[in-house]
């Protein structure tokens, strides 16, 4: 990370920032709009039983999800997803920091952790149900057990690879343990931690659905399977659409937080590219 620039970098003017955001938004929604138009034309020319037209889908979406179902199915699912993600981040970062800072702990645990990480989490669902019953706690546990691994392993790796000169600097200035954690170890590991969180988000969303499939009577995943089994095709697709939208929302929230947390990191990359 040795960097040279000859002058102080000036921040971009606000008006240009807004123009850039507008341009990016146009790029982001351009392709979806084109696809929806093609799909609408296709559905009009050749109607198919399993593929409703965009208009039907939007109607089904509004009828199905806007109203009581939002409170009964969507919100509980989102709450479990949110709690699952937060618990995964807390457990992953705290345990990862402890393991990353202790060499003996790391060497003791890493092979075992790799094993548990390799087990596909859905197979644990029946065990979780047997132990915890078809409860909210069980569903959150399933989400956490699946999505904690990328965060945990990335945190271990990030904490472990803290730059040696930075560590020596911190030691020579006699920084306290908590100062070293807050100002050196965690920021140094933050790019890796964020990469782990990004992976975990998609795993958590998958497990949110899976945890509701077999042993549930409400929730987004339950509803989608219910619609499938009852040939409510447009409703089923609307559920899938909702899942996609939740995924996009998660990615947007993540992107917002990531840009804030890793501002320095992206700044360095920008300088390196010149």
């Amino acid at each position: 990370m040795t960097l040279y620039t000859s002058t102080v970098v000036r921040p971009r003017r606000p008006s240009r920032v807004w123009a850039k955001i507008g341009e990016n938004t146009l790029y982001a929604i351009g392709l979806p709009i084109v696809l929806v138009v093609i799909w609408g034309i296709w559905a009009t020319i050749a109607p198919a039983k399993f593929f409703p037209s965009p208009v039907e889908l939007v109607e089904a979406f509004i009828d199905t999800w806007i109203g009581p179902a939002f409170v009964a199915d969507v919100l509980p699912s989102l709450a479990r997803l949110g709690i699952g993600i937060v618990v995964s981040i807390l457990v992953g970062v705290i345990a990862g920091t402890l393991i990353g800072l202790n060499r003996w702990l790391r060497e003791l645990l890493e092979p075992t952790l790799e094993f548990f990480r390799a087990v596909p989490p859905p197979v644990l669902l029946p065990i979780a149900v047997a132990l915890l019953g078809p409860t909210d706690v069980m569903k959150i546990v399933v989400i956490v057990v699946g999505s904690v691994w990328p965060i945990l392993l990335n945190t271990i790796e990030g904490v472990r690879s803290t730059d040696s000169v930075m560590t020596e600097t911190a030691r020579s200035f006699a920084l306290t343990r908590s100062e070293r954690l807050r100002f050196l170890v965690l920021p140094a590991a933050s790019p890796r931690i964020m990469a782990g969180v990004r992976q975990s988000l998609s795993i958590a969303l998958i497990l949110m659905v899976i945890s509701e499939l077999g042993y549930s009577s409400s929730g987004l995943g339950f509803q989608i399977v219910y619609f499938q089994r009852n040939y409510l095709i447009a409703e089923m697709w609307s559920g899938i659409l909702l899942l996609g939208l939740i995924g996009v929302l998660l990615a947007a929230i993540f992107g917002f937080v990531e840009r804030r947390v890793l501002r320095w990191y992206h700044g360095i990359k920008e300088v390196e590219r010149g």
Partner: protein
Amino acid sequence: MADTLLEVEHLKKVYESATGEVEAIGDISFSMRRGELVCIVGPSGCGKTTLLKCIAGLLRPTAGKITLDSHTVTGPPANMALVFQEYGRSLLPWLTVRGNVELPLRHKSLSRAERTRLVDDALVAVGLDHADRSYPWQLSGGMQQRVAIARAVAYQPEILIMDEPFAAVDAQTRADLEDLVRRLHLDRGMSILFVTHDIDESVYLGERVVVLSKSPTWVQEDLSIDLDADRDQITTRALPRFTELRTHVYEQIQRAKRGEAVRPAA
């Protein structure tokens, strides 16, 4: 001696490696008075950095004793500040210039106002008071090293240790930074131990130059630099005495490289 700040006695450092033991430092002894600016030069690979890390308490010596301010060094001493060669890896890129300079002061029992004053004062001393909100990676190499120096100055150490701090900056920046070090030493009476491989730099900066032998290292010569305290890049470097001294040190280094110098019996 009451005003002895740093005392290195019969320091020896042997590294254990897979291929056997490597004796990096044979037997180094020297001392430094309070308020002195001492330069250490030696041929490349002579264990200069090892010596510094031992003094800084980052490495445990195999034998010998280091005393700083009449306390034996066993870990990093609180009254010492370090400036490394790798400024880009020594400053924290997620903190601003001000954040970096302020960080070591956080656990000192200072009021907020006092802390801010120390940081401001240090930034002014290195000429970076206009860049306190920038991030290190937005600055040039020379400016980054100034930040590292400001951090050390604000820390108010008894001794400032610099490990080849200007090896990675260009020649003009280097001359500016050398004058900055001279000024800190003269204006603030800072005790500075400056390690370099540059012979001219050691003679220009130091009041004393300690010449190290090649590895396993001992002190080959401890030379007093009898130049005027008020030094200048142009006139000082043109003085006949400067040329004599640098030639002398140069010859010593050449002898050290060839291994001609004889190790004194301990």
